[in-house]
């Protein structure tokens, strides 16, 4: 006759202190060489909470139980351990528990014991990993949003003149956003001239060029003018090699020259107030 789940839980309850001590010792020792900071060690409180959950899970009502697992998982995620370390820690618990069961000569087929142990621990472990992945997905999504906000900024520099400085790689998503923001900006700031600064764009291939051409055309259609500035010399040469025709687009080599041109196009000019000393 083998030990059923309730038996395992009972066993954990009876030998709780021993199991916990072994678990903490074994895990923290195995980990000692790599990391020694306090925060990297599994502490008494967390170990106790885990064991408590295992012991109480059969007693608790379903939703009470899942709330507890949920809270525990959150705490684990907050430790900020790498996934493999969490896995190793939880696995160590199973190994310790198994060793204890054998040590106390609990009757039953060892293989079956292992699978019973797994039935006890897996609902909790599963929730821990679910929490872990969803917390990382959240982080990645937030960073994605932050990046998107930075991806096509529009800066009104003078009345009716705006600048869009582009830095970094332009992919399809970003190209779409550039176009949208340019058009929105023209309306919102009542721009007559928009300057697209590509000083920080590492590669201008035919796709990027195509998007720039389309954006300039769209700006023209809403009644404004666009200026392309910041074409580095090596980029200018590759554009020529590629055979891309940018003759329909006004270009200036620096942002400063572009702004001067934009002021001129809107009948203005920067003048100095008399002589500087």
């Amino acid at each position, binding site marked *: 006759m083998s030990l059923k789940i309730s038996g395992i839980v009972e066993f954990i309850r009876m030998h709780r202190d021993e199991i916990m001590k072994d678990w903490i010792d074994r895990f923290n020792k195995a980990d000692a060489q790599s990391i020694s900071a306090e925060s990297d060690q599994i502490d008494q409180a967390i170990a106790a909470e885990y064991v408590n959950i295992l012991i109480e899970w059969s007693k608790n009502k379903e939703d009470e139980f899942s709330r507890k697992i949920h809270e525990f998982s959150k705490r684990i995620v907050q430790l900020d351990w790498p996934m493999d370390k969490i896995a190793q820690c939880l696995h160590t618990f199973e190994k310790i528990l198994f060793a204890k069961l054998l040590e106390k000569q609990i009757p039953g087929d060892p293989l079956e014991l292992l699978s019973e142990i797994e039935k006890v621990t897996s609902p909790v472990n599963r929730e821990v990993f679910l929490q872990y992945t969803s917390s990382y997905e959240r982080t990645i999504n937030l960073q994605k949003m932050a990046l998107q906000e930075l991806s096509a900024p529009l800066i009104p520099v003078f009345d009716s003149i705006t600048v869009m400085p582009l830095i970094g790689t332009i992919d399809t998503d970003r190209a779409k956003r550039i176009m949208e923001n340019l058009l929105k900006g023209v309306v919102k700031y009542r721009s007559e001239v928009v300057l697209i600064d590509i000083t920080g764009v590492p590669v201008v291939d*035919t796709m990027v060029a195509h998007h720039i051409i389309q954006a300039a055309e769209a700006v023209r259609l809403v009644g404004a003018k666009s200026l392309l500035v910041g074409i580095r010399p090596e980029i200018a040469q590759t554009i020529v*090699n590629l055979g891309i025709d940018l003759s329909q687009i006004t270009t200036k080599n620096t942002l400063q020259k572009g702004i001067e041109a934009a002021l001129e196009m809107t009948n203005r000019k920067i003048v100095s107030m008399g002589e500087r000393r």
Partner: protein
Amino acid sequence: MDGQSCVMIMNEWDIVAARQLGRHAAKELGFGAVDQARITTAISELARNIYHYANGGKIYIDKIEEKEKKGIKITASDHGPGIPDIRKAMEDGFTTSGGLGAGLPGVKRLMDEFYIDSKTGEGTVVQVVKWLR
């Protein structure tokens, strides 16, 4: 980096990875800023074609040496639908996707040597070389 390196092209970010690898190799070989830009742009075109038309493939980057000459060789290989009419595809402005159609002919002008082989239903291989001078 020695010998050959390879990047699988599955999504748009792999194109950036292939470009960076190529730029790094070109810099190591001693190519100047303009040639680095040419090589990187050529990789970008070939990788994007793989991503766009072949639904995945590979970019290989080799440093090569031949009779006192040093250079970089880029090989773009895929098992996509192939190009039915290579001569047409090499014409400036020919595109089946509403692009600029300047990719393949542009790459040929950006680099020193250009080979293309494509079979309908089997895939496409484009190999280009830039020599250091």
